[in-house]
């Protein structure tokens, strides 16, 4: 053995000094007394734990063992609960999503039904109004539904679902409880074409309600009507009601046509603009006024 002045350890001759990293065995050998002390203390501590009791004769070693394992048990339990909870939450969310979709479908169906019922109720109300109006009229009428409108911007005509089979002919007045709509211009076996009074080619014999001034109502391409042949001297007031005069042998007398919205003096005749009483853009159910010979033809066909 030689003594190396640069180290505090004795080094065997020819044996290299180990300088690579900590050696566990050398560490234990250097601190053997400390490890022995620790071992002795632990052994006697275990011996004590087997003797000493706590908490109603529970041995201390059991208490320590439970204290050591308890945190891990709680952690595992917590982890398990978390996992189970997460899975249950996911499953509940999945069920909730399915249920949500089903409820959405049901809601859409219910809303559709509600809308349908509302429409039916509204239609029922309209039809009742038409029926009541029809019963009040002193002439025969046929109720019809507007099924289509004529194509084209300047064409103010609609189709109704009654035709020859219902006893209709051309030049029959078409009205609603609000007022005059127009007249039939073409009749087909099961439908008819109705010319609206706002069409420039239509003409209705009218008179003012108060002054009883008569004129001819012609359609305007801008959904208004003009009364022709009223002299400038004739009094016409704004908001005055315009009625049918009955002189055209088509429209019965006294039917509401519209109201005066503008009046101005012209060359000889006044320029009187009339807004129709009926909203011609929202026609649904109309009444066709039958002429007496039409009534007879309808009776022979066996239709009401």
């Amino acid at each position: 053995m030689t003594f190396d002045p640069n180290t505090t350890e004795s080094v065997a001759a020819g044996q290299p000094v180990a300088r690579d990293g900590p050696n566990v065995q050398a560490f234990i050998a250097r601190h053997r007394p400390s490890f022995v002390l620790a071992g002795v203390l632990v052994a006697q501590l275990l011996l004590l734990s087997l003797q000493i009791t706590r908490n109603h004769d529970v041995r201390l070693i059991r208490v320590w063992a439970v204290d050591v394992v308890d945190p891990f048990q709680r952690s595992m339990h917590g982890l398990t609960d978390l996992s189970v909870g997460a899975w249950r939450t996911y499953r509940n969310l999945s069920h909730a999503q399915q249920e949500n979709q089903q409820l959405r479908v049901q809601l859409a169906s219910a809303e559709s039904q509600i809308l349908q019922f509302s429409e039916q109720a509204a239609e029922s109300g309209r039809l009742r109004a038409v029926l009541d109006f029809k019963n009040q009229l002193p002439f025969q009428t046929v109720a019809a539904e507007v099924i289509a409108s004529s194509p084209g911007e300047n064409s103010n005509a609609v189709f109704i679902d009654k035709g020859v089979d219902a006893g209709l002919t051309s030049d029959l007045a078409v009205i609603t409880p609000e007022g005059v709509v127009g007249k039939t211009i073409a009749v087909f076996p099961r439908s008819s074409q109705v010319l609206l009074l706002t069409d420039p080619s239509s003409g209705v014999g009218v008179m003012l309600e108060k002054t009883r001034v008569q004129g001819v109502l012609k359609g305007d391409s801008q959904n208004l009507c003009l009364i022709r042949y009223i002299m400038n001297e004739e009094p016409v007031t704004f908001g005055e009601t315009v009625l049918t005069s009955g002189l055209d042998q088509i429209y019965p007398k006294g039917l509401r046509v519209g109201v005066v919205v503008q009046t101005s003096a012209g060359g000889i005749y006044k320029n009187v603009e009339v807004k129709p009483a009926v909203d011609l853009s929202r026609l649904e159910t109309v009444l066709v006024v039958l002429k007496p010979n039409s009534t007879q033809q309808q009776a022979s066909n066996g239709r009401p």
Partner: protein
Amino acid sequence: MPVTPEREVEAFRVHYATLAVSVLAALLLQTVLPVVIPVAGLMDFSLLVTVYFTLIRQNQIFGIALGSILGLLQDALSHGYLGMFGMAKAVVGYLAATAAMRFNFETLFARCVATASLVVIHDLCMTALQHVLLESPPPFVPLDRASSVLVNVALSLIFFPILDRFR
């Protein structure tokens, strides 16, 4: 480069018979004397034997073993739990040997200081163990602990020179 000489430490060997007799005598004195002399309850002969033989042997493992054995024997003869004195005296034996490896305890003063310190450490270990492990630890009375230190230091002054004749 000159070599710094390490401090020469004298370690003594003791006959095992001397050790065994000392251990037995300590246990007997500790169990018999308190019946006759009440103040003998403060005397810890086992501790003194542990301290003495560890100081002269200067071996930590020896100190741990001697302290554990004496402590366990003391526990066995008392009504307490096995291991209380064993642990405290094992610590005392380790510390005594560690100190003896670095300092010279051949003088009277050094031995008194060592004995006093180790008695205090022993009492602190016992108090700590009792408070940690027992549900109802005995009260800590500083006056009793101080008296114990003084009594055991006085005993060491008597018994250590006697034991020196046998090393």
